[in-house]
């Protein structure tokens, strides 16, 4: 494998890990959503990197990235809507407030 690709891949992986870390540690739902975006973007980045470095003569990775960004946007929209609902309902966007149902 070309060493150059790693220069791009490693940040992507770090981004992904940051996303996971952020998702797990943030208290605020919006912050969690942001973390999720990091993860999604990391995946998108991967597609772009692999396409650029491994299969430069094809475009599928790039196209895929575009679609994925669109989907991520849709997801965020739905999530935000639900968060707003929760805020209306309990007046908070803390994730710890939403663990009534368990075990």
């Amino acid at each position: 494998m070309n060493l150059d690709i790693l220069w791009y891949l490693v940040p992507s992986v770090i981004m992904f890990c940051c996303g996971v870390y952020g998702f797990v540690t943030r208290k605020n739902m919006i912050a969690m959503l942001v973390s999720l975006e990091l993860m999604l973007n990391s995946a998108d980045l991967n597609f772009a990197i692999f396409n650029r470095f491994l299969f430069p003569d094809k475009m599928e990775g790039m196209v895929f990235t575009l679609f994925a960004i669109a989907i991520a946007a849709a997801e965020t929209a739905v999530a935000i809507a639900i968060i707003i609902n929760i805020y209306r309902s309990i007046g908070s966007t803390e994730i710890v407030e939403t663990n009534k149902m368990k075990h």
Partner: protein
Amino acid sequence: MGITLPILILAMPFFMFLLLGLGGVKMSRKVAGVLGILGMGTTMTLAYIVAFTYFFSGDAAFIIDGVRQQFQVFDVTWLAFTERLVVKIGFLLDPISAMMLVVITTISFMVHLYSWGYMESERGFQRYYAFLNLFSFSMLGLVVATNIFQMYIFWELVGVSSFLLIGFFYRLPSAVSASKKAFIVTRFADLGFLLGILTLTFFTDTFNFVDMTSNPMNVLAQTGGATFMGASVLTWAMVLIFTGGMGKSAMLPLHIWLPDAMEGPTPVSALIHAATMVVAGVYLVARMFPVYCVVEASMTFITVVGAITAFYAAVVACTQIDIKRVLAFSTISQIAFMMVSLGVARDGMPGGEHYSGLGYMAGMFHLFTHAMFKALLFLGAGALIHAVHSNDYTKMGGLRKYMPITHWTFLIGCLAIAGIPPFSGFFSKDEMLAAMFNNNWIWGAWMTMVAGLTAFYMFRLYFLIFWWEENPNYKHHRPHDAPWQMSLPLIILAAVSVVAGFIPFGELVTWNGVSYHIHLEAPVAVTSIIVALCAIALAAKMYMRKNTLPEKFRKAMPGLWTAAHHRFYWDELYIFITHKIIFGIICSAIAWFDRHVIDATMDGFAKVTQKVSFAIRGLQGGNVQAYVLWYFFGAVALALITWICLL
């Protein structure tokens, strides 16, 4: 001989059993009684016809060149275990079975008749007659068995009818426990019998008696010299089979049920526990006699067991106060006599061919005479109990004036059992003793001593009942002789006991069918008469008039007397083993183990699952971040583990 009569002999009592058993509830006592007696009378007549035809017709089927043949009247397949091992139900006519037919039907008829008077006021009269018929059927089936398995079948049936009759007064706890004891002890012995049959027939591949006994050396050859724990397999088989006989015939140490069996109605004791069922063991040995003959060790075993039992029972009989128990121990002792007699008979004894089967013949002879006089004694005892309403001789005494018929017949019985000529017991006992002396003088001397003891305890009983001192209660309740239904059998049996000794038994019943001329062995006869007379005299001295001699004797040997009175603590030993060890330790332990180990393990699986279920509920903590963490690490772990495992 056609097969009608033999079949009827078996069918009649069985039919009466079904009739009285199923329809008895709807019948009046009188009808049931008459039906029972008529049924048994018919059976008796048929049995007589068959037996007399066998013995005296001289038909070529039964006797060839002076040798009596074994004749299978019919033999139908009942159950085929394998192609060769087939259980059949049949009717074997040979000297001993013909003799037994007579004995059983006679005594049974007497008892039927007697019971009509004796049991008249009891509840369940019809049931009683039904059971009597069941017993008669089973016993007849046993003696005419053509094969050892048929014998086993009826052996069990006899056991259960005995159980039912002992427990006839089922409201009394003592009767219930006595019946249980009888059944279980004999059942235990039957286990030995069964194992013996299994072992024996494994080699012989047949159940049939005739096949086995006609060529006993072949049986020996078939076992091929196999041994188990030092003894040959055949010895094991024969001893195990004999164990069954020990149970039914109440040999030491399986004798404990018989004294308790006296809880049953007295006529039943006369029929089952004196005359017929208890001699089944003797009959079994006689039936397999040729095979036993080739196994020296088993014969020795029989002899030793018989000798010990005879002496033991005689000693115990001297100290009992319940008259039926005295008679019971006396029965044990007398049966043991027959066992010893069989045990000492065999091929190749000193004295030549002539003596080989003497013990066998004598044992069978004694079986016959004993059946008569012991039934007589029991029925007499029944009459006494009927009059005094107690089994206890201390409630009796001086009865000779009140109950003359009973007195005289009882006396005849006592004389017969004591071996005083010309009563029947003398002849049979004399032949037995002769056979024993002939084998080894030790057996002879030992058994002569037992004979003396017999005379002593019988006359002790006789004097204590009919002489001694009168019970003051007689003034309130005057005892009297029993009604004719009860007295008639007494008289008949007494008459038989007087004359039975003159039957030319040796001409009729021998082990190989060749007739044998009985002649008195003068030294043996004289010795035994002297011993008996001395014993009677001693008994008369001690018990004829009320005196303190018995008390002095008792004081002189307190330990021995107490031990003998408690039958040398056999019952206590058994109770300890069964209650404490088997029930208390084994059964309870297993039951505990089942509930607390096996079952608890099964429940444990469920409990552990429940526990785990609760323990892991924290996994589902309600926090989506934790969920996702699990999710993420799950995926990573999956990849890592697979990686580690595969690459």
